[in-house]
């Protein structure tokens, strides 16, 4: 009798532990897909074809720096950036009205979800620099300065694509990182 009860309790324990593990795995999967949704939204549609607005964004903004995946900032940030192009972090990046309207609409449509993923705990804020997001800082806090500002091939954290080779496609996984003069990055 006692042995049977023990058996049942034993099964229950395994069952509960197993369900918890499964639940945790499921949660981490949804978390991961949400984060990556945030990164690569608007970069290309499922068939890999870019819309005219996406092409205008890459042509106009990508002329001077990488065309940052729109999901990296919330809509309020993009709107603010697009209305101050005459002083764009100290540079003049003025565009005529047509492209401004088209690109603003594209960025707004594909902006990151405020308060979620890498914009967690930032709801209501409109940060202008991706490199100043708490999430960004946390993700890069083990990368020494000498590999970035002290590395002539990198120069600044703003040049995502120098190390994140697939940055423009919205892919920032660690296994796609190659730091010039250093190599793969594993922490």
């Amino acid at each position, binding site marked *: 009798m006692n042995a049977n009860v023990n058996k049942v309790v034993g099964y229950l324990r395994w069952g509960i532990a197993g369900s918890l593990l499964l639940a945790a795995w499921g949660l981490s999967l949804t978390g991961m897909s949400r984060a990556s949704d945030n990164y690569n939204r608007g970069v290309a549609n499922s068939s890999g074809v870019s819309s005219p607005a996406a092409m205008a964004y890459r042509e106009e903004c990508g*002329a*001077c*720096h*990488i065309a940052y995946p729109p999901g990296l900032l919330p809509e309020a940030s993009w709107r603010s950036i697009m209305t101050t192009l*005459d002083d764009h972090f*100290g*540079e*003049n*990046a*003025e*565009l*005529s009205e047509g492209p401004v309207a088209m690109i603003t609409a594209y960025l707004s449509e594909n902006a990151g979800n405020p308060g979620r993923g890498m914009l967690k705990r930032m709801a209501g804020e409109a940060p202008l620099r991706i490199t100043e997001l708490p999430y960004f800082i946390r993700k890069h806090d083990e990368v020494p300065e000498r590999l970035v500002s002290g590395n002539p091939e990198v*120069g*600044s954290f*703003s*040049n995502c694509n*120098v190390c994140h080779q697939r940055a423009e496609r919205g892919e920032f996984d660690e296994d796609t990182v190659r730091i010039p003069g250093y190599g793969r990055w594993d922490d």
Partner: protein
Amino acid sequence: MSNGRFAVIGLLLGFALTAQADVIDEKLAQYRTEGAQAFSAEAGLNLWISNHNGRSCTQCHGDSPQGVGKHIKTGKQIKPMAPSVNPQRFTDSDKIDKWFLRNCKWTLKRVCSAQEKGDILVWIREQ
């Protein structure tokens, strides 16, 4: 490679160069209506290489217009400006307007005059 292919490539290059000549001539005519006098390649070169309070065209475009440039802040590559090595340059009037606006404001902290823009174009078209 067959002669046919040479002919096609030659034809395409010919089109590109003609488009360039047309667009540059069109811009020069426009600048004249905006008050510019005779253009000078020498003045264009001077504007290109001179230092304007620590800033110069060559900081991003490089010392030679035939060479590849590098954006001073982002490090992004800038294709050569010289039509002899980059026939795509100066084939789009809107692009010419956009980059003169942005880059004059960065380099000179003001817009360029019609005269200055024309001077640069007549110099660079020969490069």
